[in-house]
C-alpha cells in the first residue's frame, strides 16, 4: 500500500517535472536583477568577486539568516545530544591515532588554519569567502580531534572558547549592521571607504563581515562535529531481540 502511494507520488512528480521541462529555456536567462547587479556592483560595493558582493552586500540579511540557521541547527543538536548521556562513558570507542596520524595532524593544523584565513580574507577578490574558509577552519580543529580523541572524545576542544567565538562572531556581524543603522539609517549598509578596487583592503566593511561569517561558521561546525564525536557509540544490539531497549 505504502509503495503504491510512493510510486503514484513519484509518477506525479515526474509528470510535473516533464511539463516544466518542455517549457523552460536554459542558456538565455532573463537576468533582470542579475544584469543590473553585474553592472552596478563594482561601483556600489567595490568587490571584484561579485558573488561575494551579492552574498554580503545586496543579500546580506540572507547571509545573516543562514548563519542563524547553522546556529539553530548546532544549538538544537546540542539540545538533542546533551541529554541522557550521563551514565555512558563517552569516547571509549575511538582509539587514539597512531604516530603518523598525530604527526600529520600537527603539521596539517597550522596549514589548514592559514589556508582558511587566506580564503576568508580574500573572499571579496577571488572565489571563496567566509563560508568556505570557515569550513576549512572547522576542519583544521576537527583533524586535531580525530588524531587525539582524548578522554572525553573532545580532543581538548574547549567548549567555552567555541561558545564565545560563535557568539561574539555573530554579535560582530549584527553589530556591523547596527552600526550602519545608527549611522546611516539602513541596516547592513556598506560602511568605510571602498579603497582601491581589487586590493586586499577594499570593499569597505565587506572583509570584516567575511571574517565574522568565517569565524562563526568555523566555530559552529567545530562545535557540531565535536558534539557528534563526543557521543558514545550505540550499544550493539542483539539481532535475536530487535525490540529490546537498553535502559
Amino acid at each position, binding site marked *: 500500500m505504502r509503495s503504491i502511494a510512493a510510486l503514484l507520488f513519484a509518477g506525479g512528480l515526474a509528470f510535473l517535472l516533464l511539463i*516544466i521541462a518542455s517549457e523552460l529555456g536554459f542558456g538565455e536567462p532573463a537576468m533582470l536583477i542579475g544584469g*543590473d547587479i553585474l553592472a552596478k556592483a563594482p561601483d556600489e560595493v567595490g568587490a571584484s568577486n561579485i558573488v561575494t558582493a551579492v552574498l554580503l552586500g545586496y*543579500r546580506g540579511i*540572507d547571509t*545573516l539568516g543562514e548563519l542563524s540557521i547553522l546556529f539553530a541547527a548546532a544549538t*538544537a543538536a546540542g539540545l538533542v545530544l546533551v541529554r541522557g548521556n550521563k551514565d555512558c562513558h563517552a569516547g571509549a570507542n575511538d582509539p587514539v591515532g597512531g604516530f603518523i596520524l598525530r604527526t600529520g595532524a600537527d603539521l596539517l593544523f597550522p596549514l589548514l588554519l592559514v589556508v582558511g584565513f587566506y580564503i576568508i580574507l580574500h573572499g571579496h577578490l577571488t572565489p571563496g569567502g567566509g563560508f568556505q574558509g570557515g569550513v576549512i577552519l572547522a576542519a583544521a580543529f576537527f583533524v586535531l580531534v580525530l588524531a587525539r580523541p582524548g578522554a572525553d572524545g573532545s580532543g581538548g576542544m574547549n567548549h*567555552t572558547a567555541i561558545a564565545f567565538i560563535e557568539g561574539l562572531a555573530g554579535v560582530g556581524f549584527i553589530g556591523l549592521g547596527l552600526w550602519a543603522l545608527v549611522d546611516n539609517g539602513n541596516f547592513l549598509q556598506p560602511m568605510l571607504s571602498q579603497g582601491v578596487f581589487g586590493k586586499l583592503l577594499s570593499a569597505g566593511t565587506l572583509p570584516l563581515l567575511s571574517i565574522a561569517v568565517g569565524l562563526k561558521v568555523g566555530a559552529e561546525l567545530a562545535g557540531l562535529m565535536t558534539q557528534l564525536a563526543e557521543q558514545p557509540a550505540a550499544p550493539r544490539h542483539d539481532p535475536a531481540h530487535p525490540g529490546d531497549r537498553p535502559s
Partner: protein
Amino acid sequence: MIDLLSVTQGQTVLPVVLPLLAAFLLQPLGRVAKPLALLLGPATLAVSAYLLIQLWISFGDTPYMLAIGGYAPPLGIVFYVDQLALLFATAVPILVLLFWSRGEDDPDPIRRDAVMLLLAAAGTGLALSGDLFNIYVFYELTAVASFGLVTLRATGAAYIATVRYLLLSAFGSVLALVGIAIIYLETGTLNLAQIAQLAPTALAGPNGLAAFALLLIGFGVKAELFPVNTWVPEVYATAPTRISALLASLVSKLAVLVVVRLLVLAFDGTGAAQLMLLLGALAFVTAELAAWRARDLRRMLAYSSIGQLGLVFIGFSLSGTAGLLAGLALALHHLVIKAALFGLATRWGGSLERLVGAARSAPIASGLMVLFALSLIGVPPLPGFWAKLLVVMGLAEQSTTLSLSALALILIGTAVEANYLFRLVIKLYARGEADAPAPPRPKLLDLGIASAAGVLLLVATVGVGRVSGWLGGIASQAADREVYIRTVFPPKSAAVAAGSPVHEAS
C-alpha cells in the same frame, strides 16, 4: 543615536535582528552570568513587541517598504510592511512571550531560550519579508528552530516524531526551492513586487502553476496542508504542549501568510486558487473524521487544527477582498482559540476519559472549553460563526462544481466536528465514578491565557461590526496588488516628494 521613544521606519528591521543578537549572546552570557542570560530572552521579546506596536501606531496607515542595506529594489532585499504584515509580525513576539515559561525539568534552559528567540526572529522576518528567497531562508530558520523545540520532552517518541517531521520538512523545502528556481527562470527576479509586475505574462502558463504547486507543497508542510501534514498528530502528541500551541496557532499562520502573498501577487489565475480549494476541502473533511476517531485530547486538537487550517485555505482561495477577509477572519479565530486550547491541554493532555468530571474541579476552564468548542463549530453569535459564514457565502457565490462540492464537504465536516466536540463537552460535565481521581486543574498561567482568549472572543462577538470593518480594511489593503507594486517601486515624482528613505550607495 536611536531614540528610544520614537521609531523610524529604518528600525523595522530591529524586531528581526534583536532576537537574533540576543540568541547569539546567550551562550557566552550564560557562562558568565546565568541569571542575567535567563532574563535576556523575555526582555528582548518585550522590546520587539513594543517596537512593532510603536511602528503600527506611527506608520500603520499606509504600507511602506524598507530596503535593507540601502540597496534600491529590486537589487537588494526589501521588507514590505502593511497592516497584514504588522498584524502577524506583532503576534509573533507576543505569543512567543506568552508561551515562554519553561518546563520544570528543563536541563538546558540557555539553549532552549536561544532556539525560542531564533523562532521569534524567523517568524517576524517571515511576516515582513518581501523577497522570495529571503522568505525561504526565514522559513528554514523557523523549521530548524521548531525541530529543536519539539524534542524538548526528550522521550523516544519525541525523537521519532522529530526525525519524521524533519525529513518531510526538508523534502518540502527542496520542492519549494525547485519552485523558486522555476520562478527565477521565468521572471529573472526574486523581488515579490517585480514578480507581481511580470506575473501576468511570465507566470500565466503551466510553468507558473507548477511553480505554485511546488511552493504550496513546500510551505504547506508548516501550514499543515493536506498531503504533507502527517507530522502534525505525531509532533503535537509528543512535543511540549506550549510548543504545540506555538506551532499550531502561530507558525502555521505565518506559512499560510506566505502562500497568500504569493497567491495575491503572482498567481491570481483560477488554477492556483482551485488547487488550494481542493486541498483545503480534502484537509478539512479528512482531518475532522480523524479527530472524531481520536481518543486523546492532544491528537484531537492536532487533527482539529489541520481541519481548521484547511478551512483557512478554502477561505483564502476565494477571489478578491472577500476571500482575503474570510481567510483572515478564520486564521485569527483559529490563532486565538488553538493557542488557548493547547494551553489548557498542558494539564489535560492524554486520554479523554481522564477528563470525566473536570467541570467540578475546574469550572472556569471547562466553561472556556465549551465557549471555544461552540465558536469552533460556528454557533451563531460567536465569531466562528461569522467567519464560517463568509466562507460558505463565498463558495455559494462562485457556484462551480468544485466550490459546491467543497461547500458540501464543509457542512459534513462541521457536523462531524460538532459531534466530537460535544462528546468532549459531555465528558467534562459528566458525573465521574466516585473513586476516580479528579482531573487536574490547569495552571494559573494557562488559565490566564485561555481567559484572555475567551474575553477576546466575547469582545469580538459584541463588536462584530467594528472587528469586521477593521479586518476588511486590512484585507482590502493586502488584496491590492497595485498598492504593493507602487510601494516598492514608487513612481519617480512621488519618491522625491515623499523623501523616500532609499538612496543608492555612492
